[in-house]
């Protein structure tokens, strides 16, 4: 929809070419401003069926880029977001409270710039407390770091030693998951080498 409305490419929220140090102690909303991090985080969330929150975040930021003096585009974008994420039963319905949903659905001003603020806040809380922790110990983050490092040579690699590896999901789709072979589950006392048998 953002392309259809001519919103300039979403990398950028914020792009940097300098060596980007992804520090898990940084607030998530700051980290999500980086396109590559956002994509990695989104892929992780999709893999454990929690992607809609991140997709919503993405599209709301697209929406926020539309200038205030262009209410028509705002309204189109707002309607699109509402149909896709807010309406009960929507394809990518997000996990927000009743009141926050009602505020949006009963608004008299679809062009309002703060229309999605409360929803975004709730979902950021959800992502922070629910998804972020698992992301740092996932293969997606490991891959992201490797890719960042090959792009910026000489950048010192942060040690992963401190982080326990505890996958959120070893397989939802069974054999589709290319990573389940490498998963090591914390001390559950039986052989690890054949996790995908059914």
């Amino acid at each position, binding site marked *: 929809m953002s392309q259809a409305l001519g919103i300039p490419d979403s990398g950028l929220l914020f792009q940097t070419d300098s060596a980007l140090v992804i520090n898990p102690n940084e*607030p998530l909303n700051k980290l999500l401003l980086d396109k590559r991090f956002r994509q990695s985080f989104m892929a992780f969330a999709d893999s454990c069926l929690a992607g809609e929150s991140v997709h919503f975040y993405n599209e709301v930021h697209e929406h926020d880029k539309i200038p205030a003096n262009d209410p028509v585009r705002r309204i189109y974008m707002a309607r699109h977001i509402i149909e896709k994420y807010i309406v009960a039963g929507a394809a990518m319905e997000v996990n927000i*409270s009743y009141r926050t949903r009602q505020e949006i659905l009963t608004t008299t001003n679809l062009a309002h710039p703060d229309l999605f603020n409360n929803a975004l806040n709730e979902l950021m809380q959800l992502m922070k*407390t629910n998804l972020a922790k698992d992301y740092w110990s996932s293969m997606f983050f490991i891959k992201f770091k490797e890719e960042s490092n090959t792009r910026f040579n000489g950048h010192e690699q942060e040690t992963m030693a401190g982080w*326990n590896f505890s996958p959120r999901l070893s397989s939802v789709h069974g054999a589709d998951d290319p990573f389940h072979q490498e998963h090591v589950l914390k001390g559950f*006392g039986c*052989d690890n080498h054949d996790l995908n048998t059914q």
Partner: protein
Amino acid sequence: MLSIITQNMGSLCSKQRRYNEADAEENAQAAEIERRIEQETKAEKHIQKLLLLGAGDSGKSTIFKQIKLLFQSGFDEAELKSYIPVIHANVYQTIKILHDGSKELAQNETDSLKYVISNENKDIGKKLSEIGGFLDHPPLTKELAQEIETLWRDAAVQETYACGNKLQVPDCTPYFMDNLQRLSDPNYIPTKDDVLYARVRTTGVVEIQFSPVGENKKSGEVYRLFDVGGQRNERRKWIHLFEGVTAVIFCAAISEYDQTLFEDENKNRMIETKELFEWVLKQPCFEKTSFMLFLNKFDIFEKKVLKAPLNVCEWFKDYQPVSAGKQEIEHAYEFVKKKFEELYFQSTTPDHVDRVFKIYRTTALDQKLVKKTFKLVDETLRRRNLFEAGLL
């Protein structure tokens, strides 16, 4: 003469042969059983899929945490500390809900005066309400903890809490509010209980794999347990997990008969659970799946049921109290249990006649009780396994 002897010998031999055959057959059967038991106990070949299902806030993730504590290596200090932001967020969000709720009740209720926060606390209230709405909460300092405690003890806030069922007040409220001093200590490390009480809505799917180590360590059962979000938007994701499920652990919070949904304040939580349970029972993939119904949050139920009558819930409208105190609590519990039993049988067809259905009274926060309950679940599933393998 010889022919008679040979004939008799022949029949004798054949009788013996029949006994030998019978022995041999028994031996063969025993060997076969041995072999199959061995096969069944090979962990790699038999991962059993368990699903935790239920409406939002029913206790699924708490059970999940308990299983992690019981059967994996538990929570180390790093993991305990990782819950500090969550616990602090719970505190800030809760006091905000109570403060904002008191203002709302002060506007809408007939006896509105009792919900008006005292003058000296009004500023604290406003400040805490604002902080509660931030994305990033400030660290919980002793000063802030003191202010939160002051507001919590305000009469209007206590009145608001007393009718918390009208608002979305989390169950962990009194626990965290009574421990504010400890939670705000600069060197605070959450206890296991703090982690169990911490409230985080689950989104998407999480799983763990574990092997319950029993007295018979050779048992080799391996379980893969899936936890999911319970709100309506999360349920569309459940379908991805429905294949090949050994057992569904369905959590129903029996204390919620007077509350409404987080995602729909016009819907009673108990009715939602009833409808959800019916829906799950009727899923074709679960035709042979065992159902373990956890009637959860009994600790809250037993306190509530003597104050708020069960029949505020449409499903329980025919409830008649018969006594008082502990007896009445038991009576109320049995009534609810019976309702769920009736619901189960109404939702099953002759196809389901072999399906295992067990009900357990649980308090997911109680580690001993969850351990005991899970042991029973495990026994039931093992027996079921053997039955299905034709060994029982």
